[in-house]
């Protein structure tokens, strides 16, 4: 079974908790994890940055047959969200039934439980998207 190892998860908590990553100062490309060189333009000028907390749902799918890791959440929605800066982020969409979804709907970032490690019971938290509460 695929397992998200604790150290690996912990290293990526900046992005998983806050959508915090690394942006190239030359071309503006956003990287999820630390990089010395921009993957897009090769620049070495990279600074820490945080994505906006809202975006638009541009595509989604309803998962009805999942890996054992997310079985209890079935059916759940995985969507592609275009953030305000144009970056695309893939994530689960929560607090919304599949029939309520529509493309281009405004969503916002929320922190949720992603899963609980079956072996050691550590809770892995991370971002999900949900319809904007206005």
């Amino acid at each position: 079974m695929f397992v998200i190892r604790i150290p690996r998860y912990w290293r990526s908590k900046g992005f998983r908790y806050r959508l915090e990553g690394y942006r190239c100062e030359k071309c503006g490309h956003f990287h999820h994890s630390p990089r010395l060189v921009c993957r897009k333009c090769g620049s070495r000028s990279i600074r820490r940055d945080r994505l906006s907390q809202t975006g638009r749902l541009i595509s989604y799918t309803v998962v009805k047959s999942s890996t054992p890791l997310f079985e209890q959440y079935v059916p759940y929605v995985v969507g592609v969200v275009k953030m305000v800066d144009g970056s695309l982020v893939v994530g689960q969409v929560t607090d919304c039934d599949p029939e309520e979804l529509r493309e281009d709907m405004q969503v916002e970032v929320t922190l949720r439980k992603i899963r609980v490690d079956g072996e050691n019971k550590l809770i892995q938290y991370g971002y999900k998207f949900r319809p904007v509460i206005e």
Partner: protein
Amino acid sequence: MTNHVFASSVTLFKKLQEVMAAMPKVNGAYIHGYGGYVPRFRIKAAEIARVWGKDEKDVPIREKAVAGLDEDTITMAVEAARQALTRAGVDPKKIGAVHVGTESKPYAVKPSGTIVAEALGISNFITSADYEFACKAGTEAIQTIIAMVEARRIEYGLAIGADTAQGRPSDALEYTAASGAAALVIGGESKDAVARFEYSMTYVTDTPDFWRRSYERFPMHTSRFTGEPAYFKHTLTALKSLLQENGYKISDFDYFVFHQPNVKFPLTVAKVLAIPNSKVETGLVSGIIGNTYAACSLIGLVRILDSAKPGQRILLTSFGSGAGSDSLVITVEDGIESKRNKAPQLDKLIARRKEIDYALYIKMRDKIRGVQ
């Protein structure tokens, strides 16, 4: 001569005591931002009564809020705190303390506050702790943050009350034990503050009304102690002591908010003190979201702040089993008008309602064993 000086000193001391007694006990601690969170799932008390063969006419509330499968005390604390920070307009790096009051922390050992702080981008150089005092843990967190601000140990602090309350299937508590969170950003004096803490009073005793031992999934309670010796004694003693010590009258307050394990108890307190129901109803939400434990009275406060006017005075009295009450006098400041609409009002969160049946409820509250 010596006697005369002594007599003058005693008179002066007595006058000083009178002045001190009349002075606000809290100096220079203000609410800069506030936030409340209610999950979107609801189960009607009548549905719980149906499953356990009880008469739905006897249920204590209409319905209660239920945390979703991917929610817990920490995620709800983050939701409320995010709103509080947005309203405060404070750089998260200026927050010097994150204290979470709860009796349903996801870990027996591992702080909730550090996860909340990291999720919100708060500095790593903070104090952080989880507080436990049953339903009073949220106001305990507030008291500590107030003291740290008063002592100028921190510029701003975050006090949170959050719970996913547990109730044993078929137990009386199952009808009301609900989920929710509320958070306050507390800091020093500022012209755009939302409200000012004026006075606080705490009363605690050792009372065996409700408890949960380690490794137990559900709490125990003794019905004989729940009302008179626990809730009413502590709520009324803290509240009356505060009024007597500082010379306040019921008519000095525009709103009252109490801990609300149901609808009847806070309304009974209002009746005993001859408080008009109109001053209690705004902050009384347990009928439609249930008893959110450590968040309970604070969510009531959030609802009041959503509509209160500058200059209005609020008396908040929490209650936690075990047992004790914190009574806080809060005066609304001018900043409320500009900050109120920076985040969704509580009624919008309450309105985002999806009804579930008992089967889904026990799945969401992890009451089905054998499933991870």
